[in-house]
């Protein structure tokens, strides 16, 4: 920066310390992943400790890795009235919307509040770039997109938000959030701000991200892709397994819970694709989530970790957990079950955290046999009964974007 741009002597914003927030009730939620469609399928696989990962059968060009693939999307086009939006990512969104009575719950909320008072905030990393990749594979001889894929709306990030807004018939605030792997947890924070300021009475939040070539080969170029099913926090972990997922939750001020108790957001300010070496951004996000929820670290029963099974993430995250939480906290990554669903991972793991506190079961890690010595007693191999129905879900993304959510079954006094 030159002298004229110098910030010396300029106003510095005071350090922002959030106060306790009013919780919001999650009156419906669902998720679809490699574990199956809807909540019962996720719970069944989590309890039975069965992974949804399989050897890569997705890419045309061979890539030796394991993936968390949702079955059947190739043969499940969108209904005719949505054909303009048809692509793998929106098919997964549509499939996920059909599960767990979500559409009925949203219809009832629309009747209560009006279509214009329900916000729609969805996270994704790559949205429907898979359709753009397909167009490049099938270019006409003169280098144009094939006619069937000359649909501008599926070649841009808001393909997701635009489609779901149409599918749900909502007229309120709608946005597609794309902060890489923190995308679909930050939507909970945005929904809380909107309802706190009276700009919405309810919010549908969620995330959808699907397998695509650029992500598989992109992570491969970073040497982050494992040739075996990922083993979060294992001393011999070899990298990530990429997955896909989609899901949605309905948040309102009142209800029977479970409750969004707090959120914390931060930036690493360190590197585009590698975490801060001391986990500084993660610590800030955890601290703000606890402050907003009015909880102490010892109140947390379960932490769903980012736990990608990359060498750097797991080492840094294990140290952060060891420093901040007591030995009684049960922490794990569920990516051994689902793979890393990238922009949808935060939502997927929030839904798993909600299942954990509702059903009193804390998942362990899957595929992991020997924990990294960096792990404290918080990080567990096996599933266990959950001592306290309060959970954190943490997500850290490329570009150093971090977000941590706090959930509980009881509305705090």
């Amino acid at each position, binding site marked *: 920066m030159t002298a004229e741009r110098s910030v010396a002597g300029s106003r510095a914003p005071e350090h922002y310390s959030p106060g306790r927030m009013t919780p919001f009730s999650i009156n419906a939620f669902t998720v679809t992943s490699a574990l199956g469609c809807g909540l019962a399928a996720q719970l069944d696989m989590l309890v039975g400790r069965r992974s949804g990962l399989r050897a890569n059968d997705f890419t045309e060009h061979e890539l030796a890795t394991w993936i968390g693939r949702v079955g059947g999307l190739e043969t499940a086009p969108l209904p005719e009235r949505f054909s303009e939006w048809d692509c793998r990512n929106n098919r997964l969104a549509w499939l996920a919307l059909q599960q767990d009575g979500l559409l009925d719950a949203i219809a009832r909320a629309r009747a209560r509040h009006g279509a214009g008072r329900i916000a729609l905030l969805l996270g994704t990393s790559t949205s429907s770039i898979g359709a753009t990749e397909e167009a490049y594979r099938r270019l006409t001889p003169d280098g144009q997109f094939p006619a069937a894929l000359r649909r501008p709306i599926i070649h841009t990030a808001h393909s997701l938000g635009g489609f779901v807004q149409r599918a749900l018939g909502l007229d*309120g605030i709608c946005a597609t959030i*794309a902060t890489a792997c923190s995308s679909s947890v930050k939507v909970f924070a945005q929904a809380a701000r909107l309802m706190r300021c009276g700009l919405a009475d309810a919010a549908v939040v969620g995330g959808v991200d699907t397998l695509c070539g650029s992500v598989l080969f992109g992570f491969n170029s970073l040497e982050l892709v494992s040739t075996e099913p990922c083993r979060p926090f294992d001393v011999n972990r070899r990298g990530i397994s990429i997955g896909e997922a989609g899901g949605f939750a309905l948040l309102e001020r009142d209800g029977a819970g479970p409750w969004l108790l707090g959120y914390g957001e931060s930036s690493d300010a360190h590197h585009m694709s590698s975490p801060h070496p001391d986990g500084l951004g993660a610590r800030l996000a955890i601290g703000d989530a606890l402050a907003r929820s009015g909880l102490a670290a010892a109140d947390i029963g379960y932490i769903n970790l980012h736990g990608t099974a990359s060498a750097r993430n797991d080492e840094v995250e294990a140290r952060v957990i060891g420093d901040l939480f007591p030995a009684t906290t049960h922490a794990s990554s569920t990516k051994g079950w689902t793979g890393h669903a990238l922009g949808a991972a935060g939502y997927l793991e929030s839904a798993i955290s909600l299942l954990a506190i509702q059903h009193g079961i804390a998942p362990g890690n899957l595929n992991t046999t020997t924990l990294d010595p960096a792990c404290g007693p918080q990080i567990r191999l096996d599933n266990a009964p959950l001592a306290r129905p309060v959970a954190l879900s943490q997500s850290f993304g490329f570009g150093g974007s971090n977000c941590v959510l706090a959930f509980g079954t009881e509305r705090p006094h």
Partner: protein
Amino acid sequence: MNAAMQQETFVDGISFWAQRLPGWEIAGAVLAGRADPPVVAGRRPSPELLPPAERRRAPDSVALAMEVAAGACAAAAVDPAGLASVFATTHADLAITDYLCETLVRAPLHTSPTRFHNSVHNAAAGYWCIATGCHAPYTTLSVHEYSFAAGLFETLLQVASDGRPVLYVAFDIEACGPLAPITVSHGLLGAGLVLSPVRTATSRARLSWSTRPGGGAQSTAARSANTELIGGNAMAACLPFYEALAAGGGPVTLALGPDLLLDVVLDSCAPAPP
């Protein structure tokens, strides 16, 4: 969606960069009809926040976003470290999207790791935080043709909700390759703001806002001569807002969605006394 007029917000910093309007000093005068645009278009901004080597290597999206982010903070005399931010970009870095898709067909195992991590929608925001040492959160969003209004709305919401100043950056770059006729965007266009919940020593305008149902036909149109200067950039919908700022105030209505409008009223104001 009916919302009462929100509490006052203040515009403390303004920045703008397009090839024919390189910087707010020039852009403000041209948008207000007080000056002619430069005859020769600039190539791309060269943000001094980046070290010289990175300044050349940075993708267009990052160079552009850094330029307007730094410009808005300098105008507001606010330290970027600690400043929460919102970044809106319709398509992020279209040149990298073209590169990734083309490489995937030709030689997927030769994908560049740097270009891959620069492909995320939030790359510019990530580099901004790295360059400024900022640990405050950022949000990056796209709402297709409503992206500028949606990002402005999210910024106003964060100012109102958290009671702290927030940086807003909106940008889009040029499309290239087979994607260009489909995802149309020409040239480089970036625009920035620092919005504050209280009047400060750098406040230039008072801003009140509300939302209401309504279609895009009711939104404010930009002056056609100005539209031609940034012709066809995907973030062109920011123009009416910056025209009002250049004119010293006025009402602006922006489409926030297919059936949702954001009404903004801007009034020039004297800075708060020191």
